[in-house]
């Protein structure tokens, strides 16, 4: 059967993500690796749009592309002198890493191909899970209404004590602690006097 539009978009995005991720781990120049990392994050944002999670796509662009990539590039620039682009960029035992990574990949695919909750007729262990691709519920006139309702649901769930208010507060506290701690760690010792 001929692939439809969303499948073509998924294929191209998956290709972009996998190829740029491979360049992230193999590029000799770390600045190039960081730029390929940005390409991977952009592909992830496209994937979130495909999955009807527009808000997450926005967060992906703002947090990952906007903040984390810049942080990583700054760290590369600040530690550049010792790590010239000559010499091996992988450690001596890199083939063990490749073997473990290949094992993880093949193992995941084997697990995925075994009869499980995802295959038709397999035991359904996930509540509410359906193998059928999701359709927009009939009470919504169009996809935009559905996405608005999804975002409203997420906001309510994140601010309700019955759902994710406590995790949200904990993450906020963790972020604050991490920021203060990293400033303290990275501060120059001479400035403490």
């Amino acid at each position: 059967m001929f692939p439809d539009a969303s499948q073509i978009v998924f294929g191209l995005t998956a290709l972009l993500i996998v190829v740029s991720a491979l360049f992230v781990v193999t590029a000799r120049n770390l600045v190039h690796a960081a730029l390929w990392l940005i390409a991977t994050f952009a592909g992830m944002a496209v994937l979130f749009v495909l999955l009807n999670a527009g808000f997450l796509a926005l967060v992906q662009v703002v947090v990952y592309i906007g903040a984390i990539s810049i942080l990583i590039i700054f760290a590369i620039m600040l530690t550049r002198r010792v790590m010239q682009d000559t010499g091996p960029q992988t450690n001596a035992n890199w083939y063990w890493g490749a073997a473990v990574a290949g094992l993880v990949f093949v193992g995941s695919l084997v697990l995925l191909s075994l009869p499980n909750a995802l295959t038709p007729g397999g035991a359904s262990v996930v509540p509410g899970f359906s193998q059928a691709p999701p359709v927009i519920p009939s009470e919504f006139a169009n996809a935009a209404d559905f996405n608005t309702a999804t975002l409203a649901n997420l906001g309510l769930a994140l601010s309700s004590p019955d759902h994710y208010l406590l995790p949200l507060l904990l993450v906020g506290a963790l972020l604050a602690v991490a920021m203060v701690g990293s400033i303290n760690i990275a501060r120059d010792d001479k400035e403490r006097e």
Partner: protein
Amino acid sequence: MSIPLSWYLALSAALFSIGVFGVLSRRNAVGVLMGVELMLNAVNINLVAFWHYGAFGPSTGLAFALIVIAIAAAEAAVGLALIISVYRRRKTVVVDDVNLMKF
């Protein structure tokens, strides 16, 4: 308009394995951190894909993915601060050379 869930899971497995390889093989500590970011992104694909296919209620997957993104930001900040601190004291960012606590 249908992409099987297993496609997302296979892509996520590929991305996670590439991240594992990056973590295990890079000499530069910043490269190791980039591998960790790839692995966290692979997890996010899984969470959002399961959410899209209706598992665990209307907003659970999204909330978890948001929390993972926030934790990844915290982890990147602390990790890079550690790398800069190590670089300042020992003039190296090669993880093999930072072996003071190696038993």
